[in-house]
């Protein structure tokens, strides 16, 4: 029976990749361990090894094909004694560019894993695929992106589609060109080009003095960055993920956030701490948690968590120029998502301004970062039920633009807050309190909260899914506050 070679998932959050090159060609003998192709992910170019022995019978996806969904069959290996005739019975499951709806969940494959050699079903199609429900994987599937530009973007401005990853990189590069005091430091930011490829190309442009690879030493390099900021430089400190920043919590809070106050306004600390925050995919409790509420608790810190590529760029540029310490919470799953970014010489998004992304008049949905993905999809679902949800992207968590939320609630009378973090003392709790204080008389229902469940993040795919918010939960919560 011919064995399909499937597009492998090469990182926990990979959804698709480019087939950069076929190293083996049709008719070549392959044995387990041979490199047969090169796949370009959004993080790196990876080699794909064969896991089966035989002849490369057919290449289904030619080299140079972009955006091949994970688990798409890319080639067929013929076993001993099989010839090309056997291919007639083989039906490729999905063409390359189709969305991943029919693909099984693949994000559990580690970066080191070889292409999966899925057992074949009776008709020659991959058995796993055949059993996969049509439901897309909630968190990882491409979320809808709002297309409205900032109000202050001049009419007719050209929009460029780019990933959030590219937008963040461009923001750093532009600010580094603008100001020699700006530099970036962190683990793997320079020669490796960024653990998540966010700093790609910066070393080449700015050199090793300004793009600084650090040892694995979060407490130390955070303190070092704060010291450099006190001396007047403007560091961008990348945490490989914010999970590791807990090692540096004392420097973030006691040194970075408080020194301006404790020095009576003398000692400034203009510094950006950035990196992926929140749930990733299948990395379990220590590597998958949301720090939004943690940092937003601290006076002296400014906390930003963008959802779109445009906001990521405009807010990061603003953050780098800001004379205060900024916690810039990115999201690994959103890095690869594309959106329109205004092509402007200097695109700045103001810190501390929420954005009404989708107008509505029945219920207000408040979210930020990855939570926006649930909120926007829920709004679409709700529209089908004739509930018009107004969706607000907070974008900045501290200082929190509660005025925009309150204004909306005065119109809708109902509110649901969506967050991936835990419920107790969460952002949702804070917003509920503020609405109670500032718009109590306008409320027609208690504020609803959809949050991550009050448990450490489990590893098992089904449990992980249960631990995270879902579109269905947001829809249900919105219906509940609408008494529907």
């Amino acid at each position, binding site marked *: 029976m011919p064995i399909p070679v499937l597009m492998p998932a090469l990182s926990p959050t990979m959804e698709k990749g480019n087939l950069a090159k076929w190293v083996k060609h049709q008719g070549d003998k392959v044995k387990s361990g041979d490199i047969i192709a090169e796949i370009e992910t959004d993080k790196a170019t990876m080699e794909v090894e064969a896991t089966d022995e035989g002849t490369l019978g057919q290449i289904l996806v030619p080299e140079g094909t972009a955006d091949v969904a994970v688990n798409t069959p890319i080639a067929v290996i013929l076993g001993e004694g099989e010839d090309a005739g056997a291919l007639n019975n083989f039906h490729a499951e999905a063409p390359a560019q189709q969305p991943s709806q029919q693909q099984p969940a693949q994000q559990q494959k580690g970066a080191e894993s070889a292409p999966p050699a899925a057992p074949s079903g009776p008709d020659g199609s991959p058995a796993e695929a055949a059993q996969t429900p049509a439901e897309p994987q909630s968190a990882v599937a491409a979320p809808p992106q709002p297309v409205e530009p900032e109000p202050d973007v001049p009419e007719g401005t050209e929009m460029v589609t780019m990933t959030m990853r590219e937008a963040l990189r461009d923001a750093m590069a532009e600010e580094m060109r603008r100001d020699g005091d700006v*530099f970036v430091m962190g683990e793997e930011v320079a020669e490796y080009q960024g653990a998540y490829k966010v700093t790609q190309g910066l070393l080449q442009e700015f050199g090793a*003095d300004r793009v600084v690879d*650090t*040892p694995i*030493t979060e*407490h*130390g*390099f*955070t*303190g*070092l*960055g*704060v*010291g*450099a*900021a*006190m*001396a*007047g*430089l403007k560091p961008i400190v990348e945490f490989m993920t914010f999970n590791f920043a807990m090692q540096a919590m*004392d*420097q973030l809070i*006691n*040194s970075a956030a408080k*020194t*301006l*106050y*404790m*020095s*009576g*306004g*003398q*000692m*400034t600390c203009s510094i950006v701490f950035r990196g992926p925050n929140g749930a990733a995919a299948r990395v379990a409790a220590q590597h998958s948690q949301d720090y939004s509420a943690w940092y937003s608790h601290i*006076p*002296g810190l*400014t906390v930003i968590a963008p959802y779109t590529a445009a906001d990521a760029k405009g807010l990061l540029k603003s953050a780098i120029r800001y*004379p*205060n310490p900024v916690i810039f919470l990115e999201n690994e799953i959103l890095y690869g998502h594309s959106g329109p970014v205004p092509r402007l010489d200097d695109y700045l998004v103001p810190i501390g301004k929420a954005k009404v992304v989708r107008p509505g008049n029945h219920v207000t949905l408040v979210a930020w970062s990855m939570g926006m993905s649930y909120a926007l999809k829920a709004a679409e679902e709700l529209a089908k039920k004739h509930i018009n949800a107004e969706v607000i992207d907070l974008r900045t968590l501290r200082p929190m633009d509660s005025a925009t939320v309150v204004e909306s609630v005065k119109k809708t009378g109902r509110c649901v807050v969506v967050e991936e973090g835990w419920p107790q003392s969460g952002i949702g709790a804070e917003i509920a309190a503020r609405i109670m204080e500032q718009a109590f008389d306008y409320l027609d229902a208690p504020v609803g909260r959809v949050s991550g469940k009050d448990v450490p993040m489990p590893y098992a795919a089904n449990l992980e899914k249960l631990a995270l918010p879902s579109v269905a939960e947001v829809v249900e919560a919105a219906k509940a506050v609408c008494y529907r």
Partner: protein
Amino acid sequence: MSDAPSPAKTNGAKGEELGGDALLSLYRSMLLVRRFEERAGQLYGMGLIGGFCHLYIGQEAVVVGMQMAIKEGDQVITGYRDHGHMLACGMDPKGVMAELTGRRNGYSKGKGGSMHMFSVARTFYGGHGIVAAQVSLGTGLAFANRYRKNDNVSLTYFGDGAANQGQVYESFNMAELWKLPVVYIVENNRYAMGTSVSRASAQTDFSKRGASFDIPGEQVDGMDVRAVKAAGERAVKWAREGNGPYILEMMTYRYRGHSMSDPAKYRTREEVEKVRTEHDPIEQVRARMLASKRASEEILKAVDAEIRKIVNEAAEFATHDPEPDPAELWTDITR
């Protein structure tokens, strides 16, 4: 005296004999710290200074000697036993004392207190309350010097207690890796609060704590200001010339408790008395000046009187300066 190597054991060579003017200047600086701290202790007892207050009495030669080894532009950063460093950096005793009493003309407008004072003008970067946090911050100051390609050096002070914190070694690693211009000054006053060095440290020779990073270090008689100055000059030169960090372990002693609320039951009165009578940094200089006739009793008396006047004025100022305006509660949180 169980933990301290005797001064004879230190490998830092005695400094050159200093000229009369230089000696008198050192004497004056050390005396200012001593008298200021004594007065701070009094004000604390009167309830005018609150919270934690860590006095530097006994350790004066360390900061005064080091200050003689640096030039304008070099930075100083330390932990919470910081009053001496601020005075040695040339900060106004009135502003320091007014911060201790929590008044509006204190260096931090009364919002920082004893442990949290800064002076950008005097390149004094604090004043940090969390043990050893200043070590990575001071390494960052050195990073900024290297980034800007200037020739400034960061003097980063910490105690024998802080020397056991992990971020010290994270900082050592980066400082040597990147050849940062920083001199780490371990003020070994033998006790981390109530825990003696030998009860807390597997390696009690702190000058060797950089050995695995190839950072040179030496032990210095921190009660002899000449030795401090000489060692400081060697270390600062090393760092300034691009060779990377240098560790100076200052063998010193604090006469008072860890803070004002420390009864210091972990050591004997005799131990304290012995250091006071045999190794007091100020008395050493005074005796030497008199013996070599480089200063007369009259001159020294005049210096004493001048210092008393400065300290009296500082205390007077700090007692009568108003408390911060209530509106200050909400300022300086972000800029």
